[in-house]
């Protein structure tokens, strides 16, 4: 059956082509030793395939800060309401599991919000809508990013893991509503 033989050979070569292309792209995208230009070249293709991954940095370098988000909502009558992202240290394992995306949102929004303030604009709008549904007329939203820096270790006995480091707030956005 020459046709069968040809078809099998064709399938084999096709599979080999797929293997070579995928492995080459994955290595260029993921390995830190691959030149940035190579990575930049494969990114659109590998993302188009849905397997873009970038370098697997995984805590390298480790983040030296803990984060929280807070918002102050000023009502038309002058009262101020406080909104706070969850204090993760007080949540149960189950709450942390089902609320995993919320804690990711806080972490990533702080990074992304520095570059794209629209992130905070939308959050301010949603908070106003949320409190509006509860009958509050919000006229001003201040979103505050709170960061606690983990001090570098020194000496021979380091502070306990559970020691709380002081949080400092920085206003990310101040959004007025008519």
């Amino acid at each position: 059956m020459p046709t069968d033989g040809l078809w099998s050979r064709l399938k084999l070569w096709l599979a080999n082509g797929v293997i070579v292309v995928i492995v080459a792209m994955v290595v260029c995208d993921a390995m830190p030793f691959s030149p940035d230009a190579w990575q930049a070249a494969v990114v659109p293709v590998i993302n188009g395939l849905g397997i873009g991954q970038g370098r697997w940095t995984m805590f390298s370098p480790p983040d030296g800060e803990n984060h929280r988000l807070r918002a102050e909502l000023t009502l038309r009558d002058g009262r101020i309401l406080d909104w706070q992202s969850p204090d993760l240290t007080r949540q149960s394992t189950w709450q942390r599991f089902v609320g995993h995306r919320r804690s990711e949102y806080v972490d990533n929004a702080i990074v992304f919000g520095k570059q794209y303030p629209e992130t905070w604009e939308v959050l301010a709008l949603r908070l106003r809508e949320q409190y509006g549904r509860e009958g509050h007329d919000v006229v001003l939203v201040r979103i505050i990013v709170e960061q606690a820096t983990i001090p570098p270790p020194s000496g021979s006995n380091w502070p306990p893991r559970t020691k709380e480091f002081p949080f400092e707030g920085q206003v990310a956005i101040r959004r007025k509503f008519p």
Partner: protein
Amino acid sequence: MTVLRQLPVRLAAAWNGFFHGPLDLRVCALVRIAYAALVLIWLAVFYPDLARWFSEDGVFPLIVARKATPGGAWTVLALLPPGNFWLTAAWAMAFVQALLLLVGFGSRLNAAAVFVWVVSFANRNALILDAEDTVFRLIGFYLILMPCGACWSVDGWIRSRNTGPNGTRSVPATVAPAWGLRLLQIQMCVIFLSAALCKLQSAAWRDGTAMYYVARLDDYFGRFPTPDVLWQTPWIVALITWVTIAVEFAIPLAIWWPRARRWALVAALLFHLANEYTMHLFLFHWIMLAGWASFLCGDDLDAIGRWCSQRGPAGRAS
């Protein structure tokens, strides 16, 4: 000269043996079942907050989300008509297709569909993503390239009941070319090697203090209790830091050596379970273990089966 002349032939034979040699179909089935079960949990956790994360009324409307999306990335959620009904319908379809993948019905087709959904949900909101979402996309992709529904599946059961033209039952396949599974194996090693090499570029990992910082990150660390002395004593912290790098280097290298493969798999299992014990990383370690399961072979599955049957009710009775 003869050796040189034979080199391309030998290389081609080695390549073909590695990528196109036979593979125990139960391994693909195991990866499929583990993956689909984890996708179901992954999707279920999205459900209460679907509108918050993925709708135009949520915290990340498309116009903002597109700025965070890397070049080439796509999401079918962008094509949905406005309104939460369609979003919920898309989620429900993804859930049903993951269920079908779990039981192995229309396996390759549903593997492709689940991959499209996973990519779409992940690419729609980059603000809620973590490394595990990348692993979900990756395993989903390689699963499409594997004969994942030939065994331990409704597809396999239907095929085994089909009778041929002369009334004979078809014999279920037990082996298939390995290349889809091999790609997943290579991918798992790339993840660990990349992580280890990135750590070597970081001063905190090199000087042994990285785990001091990691242990004090309140969004990740402190799932279950650990002795304080582990994270307060410089030499112990340094040891944990360097052992982490060593493990990330050693597993992807040792796992290809037949004599060390089982030990490397045990090390990977312990590494991920230890991390799962100490850290809140959602499904990261479980999806990684699903990926490492691709390194199991038929003998391992037989051994696990024997071990289970000896300790099961029937085994204990005899």
